[in-house]
């Protein structure tokens, strides 16, 4: 951690000693010592009350069976056992893994290709392209859900397009289909994440020195070898950040499921965040909901840790 050469206390001494008359000397000194806490106080109080304390309360609630009204019953780790054992909840975490493929893995593959293209060729209209592919990131997920529901509808533009090219056999009510509902929801995630990943990788690739490529060309390397030998290793850090962001976005899918499928048909698209909501506010299983939330948090922390460890080691 780089520190400034002159710390506040040093300046104090200098100022107090040289300039200030005697009576003033003590007050500013003690004020200075307290002032970091004064500056922190408003933020910390609000933060502690509405974020830190609820985390502790969530841990506490997760150890009780409670319907939200009557007195809770201490059940120890039973709620966590339920998260591991319950079919529906296990399915929810399984679906989250599928969503990670759609939100993180596929966009990463697309983003690498797009960014490599944009980085290699001096493409005209780069600014426009960036604005367009990043746009899904700023549109409210609820709106995204409404748009994609209309696309996936039986008479929506996806089925219309399939019919137009003679693939009538493939048309279906995408969000009502046991097999295809989850991929359909996941594909929306691909659409949302794609731009973020591309722009992130593009920023990383722009920092690669051009001489590296020139040297590779002198050695007769083609576009593909150039990509694997130079570009890919150079953006390991950006890949780690992109994966962290998109994996977490996948694990936090709530709005989209709430708006498009409500977890259905059956349990085919339910996800952990939706189960938190459903158990706490529709089924009166508050303790279980808290346990799902805590489990989700632990999973997110672990993924953060692993992805960043790998990114750090190799970059």
């Amino acid at each position, binding site marked *: 951690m780089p520190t400034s050469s002159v710390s506040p206390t040093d300046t104090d001494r200098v100022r107090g000693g040289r300039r200030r008359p005697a009576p003033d000397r003590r007050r500013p000194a003690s004020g200075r010592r307290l002032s970091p806490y004064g*500056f922190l106080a408003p933020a910390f109080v609000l933060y502690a009350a509405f974020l830190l304390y*609820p*985390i502790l309360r969530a841990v506490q609630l997760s150890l009780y069976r409670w319907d939200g009204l009557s007195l809770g019953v201490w059940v120890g780790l039973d709620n966590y056992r339920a998260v591991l054992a319950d079919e529906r909840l296990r399915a929810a975490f399984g679906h989250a893994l599928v969503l990670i493929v759609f939100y993180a893995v596929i966009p990463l593959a697309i983003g690498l290709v797009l960014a490599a293209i944009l980085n290699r060729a001096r493409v005209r209209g780069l600014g426009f*392209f960036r604005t367009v*592919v990043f746009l899904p990131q700023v549109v409210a997920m609820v709106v995204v859900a409404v748009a994609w529901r209309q696309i996936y509808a039986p008479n929506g533009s996806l089925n219309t397009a399939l019919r137009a090219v003679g693939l009538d056999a493939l048309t279906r009510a995408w969000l009502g289909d046991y097999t295809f509902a989850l991929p359909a929801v996941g594909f929306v995630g691909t659409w949302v994440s794609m731009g973020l990943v591309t722009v992130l990788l593009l920023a990383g690739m722009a920092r690669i020195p051009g001489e590296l490529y020139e040297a590779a060309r002198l050695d007769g390397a083609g*576009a593909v070898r150039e990509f694997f030998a130079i570009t890919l290793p150079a953006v390991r850090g950006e890949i780690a950040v992109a994966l962290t962001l998109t994996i977490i976005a996948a694990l936090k899918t*709530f709005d989209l499921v709430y708006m498009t499928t409500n977890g259905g048909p059956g349990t085919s698209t339910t996800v952990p965040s939706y189960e938190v909501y459903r158990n706490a506010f529709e089924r009166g299983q508050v303790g279980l909901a808290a346990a799902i939330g805590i489990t989700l948090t632990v999973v997110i922390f672990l993924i953060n840790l692993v992805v960043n460890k790998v990114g750090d080691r190799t970059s």
Partner: protein
Amino acid sequence: MTISRAEKVANYAILTLFAAFALWPVLSILVTAVGPENRTAAESGRFHLENFAAAWTQGKFGHYMLTSVQVSLLVVSVALVCSVMAGYALGTMRFRGEQLVFYLFLLGIMVPTEAIIVPLYFDLRDLGLTDTLLGVALPQIAQSIAFGTYWMRAYFRASDRSIVEAARLDGAGNHRVLWQILVPVGRPAITTLVLLTFMWTWNEFLIPLVMSPRGDVRTAPLGLAFFQGQYVQGTTLLAAAAVLVALPVVVVYLFLQRHFIAGMLEGAVRE
């Protein structure tokens, strides 16, 4: 770098394809929104901008938008002032517990809303804060402070020490250094923070959904969800309403996209 003509053509083809893919849902909802709502409407004119007015009144979006504006103003302003001050302390001062406080804020950036929403609802209900503006805003203020403090700390750490030292020698206190020197100089960083906080607050769904069970404090995205549940006979007005809900953030994005892109890439640690 020089590349072959064939590669160039192929590149443009790929980029056009993906740009079209990114725009497809956006354009399709825009087209639906201005399409005819029913048979009689289909006979007059091509662009039915009256759909927006109809969605606005039928879906009570005037009311929901106002709520969204209130929540956003409250969250952005309180979180900004708190974050600037806390970021200043963490970025420029040395004190006992500095590291601990910093890591606590970092923790808040990573904890998902899903983990805290359950106790938040039941505790704020006991305090009588559910279905109030404060109940919807306070949890979002706390989340925004976590990111904002992290963001402002990074800015203050990178800021030019010599101006600060010069001002101190002139006898400027902490408050003057902060509000009259560092804040005006840091306008780009602060603008980015304001825009990101505004976007996250405007688009937030889970917190207003849970914190206002009666729907007294229904923000625009919640209004849209509610409208989708009620308005089942067609897609036109729903699409128009969706456009209205997305519009404020999208318009700001189109004008100040550099801030959005830079902010979301640099502040990537959030979530």
